């Protein structure tokens, strides 16, 4: 096999990869320009580009599984409800409470996406805001320094808010999955449901924290503790922590 034959084979493989990438782009709803450029790139560079372009579309949207956190939570809760249905465990987790958690998680996820898009803009870059403060300090411009510090403070808060939401969502997903496992153990292995109440309690406390964060965001500032119809503090949109929490 000579060099020319190798080159032809290389380009043919590249063309096959390009077609696969173009088809995948069409399925994903990419625009024609983006689809064509991504496909053409694969012709000369298929060993580098094709494995990435042909990988799971989830990886296009952010961290693996990150975009699917609400899905993880929904699936875990749905299975948990199915397991608990018609048993004594039904009092701890049922379709109503599951739906309320899911609704809250969806809202939080929408907000998280919005924040993420906002923070990816150059004007909200943390490093740039810090540099602006440093420059203003070095040039000894008091007015600019005050503005730069205010901007930095706000950018830092937004980043902290995003990190907080992110962490809460992960915790809720982990707890929902742990709850499902515990319910399965209780049902099939006949273990006691002692741990289930604790997990549900933790789950509700995270959902409340998420709700509080969203309430603050919606109102544009911190809010006093929410009170439900019965006058209990800490309830969320009519959600009452399950009595299993203790």
């Amino acid at each position, binding site marked *: 096999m000579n060099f020319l034959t190798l080159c032809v084979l290389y380009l043919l493989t590249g063309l096959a990869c390009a077609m696969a990438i173009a088809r995948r782009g069409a399925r994903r709803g990419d625009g024609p320009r983006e689809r064509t450029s991504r496909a053409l*790139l694969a012709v*000369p560079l298929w060993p580098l580009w094709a494995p990435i372009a042909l990988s799971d579309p989830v990886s296009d949207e952010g961290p693996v599984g990150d975009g699917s956190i609400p899905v993880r939570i929904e699936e875990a809760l749905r299975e948990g409800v199915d397991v608990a249905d018609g048993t004594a465990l039904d009092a701890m987790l049922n379709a109503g409470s599951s739906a309320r958690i899911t609704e809250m998680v969806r809202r939080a996820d929408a907000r998280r996406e919005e924040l993420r898009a906002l923070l990816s803009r*150059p004007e909200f870059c943390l490093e740039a805001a810090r540099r602006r403060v440093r420059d203003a300090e070095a040039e000894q411009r008091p007015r600019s320094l005050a503005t730069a510090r205010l901007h930095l403070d706000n950018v830092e808060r937004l980043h902290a808010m995003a990190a907080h939401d992110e962490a809460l969502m992960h915790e809720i997903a982990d707890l929902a999955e742990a709850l499902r496992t515990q319910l399965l153990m209780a049902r099939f292995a006949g273990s006691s449901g002692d741990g289930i109440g604790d997990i549900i309690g933790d789950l509700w406390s995270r959902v409340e924290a998420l709700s509080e964060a969203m309430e603050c965001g919606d109102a544009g500032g911190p809010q006093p503790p929410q009170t439900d119809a019965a006058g209990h503090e800490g309830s969320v949109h009519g959600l009452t922590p399950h009595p299993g929490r203790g």
Partner: protein
Amino acid sequence: MNARIVSQLLRAPEQVARECVEERRLPQLALVSISAIALGGALFGATVGGYRGGLQVLYSAIKVPAACLWTLALCVPAYYAFTNIFGRALPVRVVAALTLASIARASLVLLAAVPVIWLMVDMGASYHATALWASVAYGLAGLSALGVMLRALGDRSKRFVVAGLMVSLFCIVGGQSAWMMRPYLGRPSQAEVPFLRAPDGVFAERVWKSGRSSMGWFDEEHSR
């Protein structure tokens, strides 16, 4: 080109490595990396080609990034094997993204070296001095690329083995690719500027012969 990713490539190699391993934004990272390699390589090539001037500027601007990307395309399957056999189990898309990100970082270092090389050429540096300093720039760029790759290979003791194998393979494949695509500098005395020189042996063989010649050992056919 996404300025945030470019900035991360230069200033936060650890974060880039982590994002690759966690498979975050791989397509975006890969596209920015390919653009950085194309741009950095093209400007560095054009500057080196500026020693001869004329068409050599254009030819070198095409050949430097082409040789680099061609080398990567050939090396990535082997890199995947190295990392999975001797180091960390990573999918091929992660290895491809890591390789691209590493070389993109190197290309950005080459881009940073452009003013220095340009100044040297402008000040009338000799052919050999220009070639030597271009090689120094390549060496520094290579070290910066290792910064990303080593972090992604984890803390395991074998990461240096994997990195050693990767560097060795890159030197062999990259050396041969670059050798096939020379000249890059070009001599001002040449009347015409060829896009490629006529095939002239294998890179490794040339290095071996040059090494022996530099130590005063000449092969029989040369000494005759």
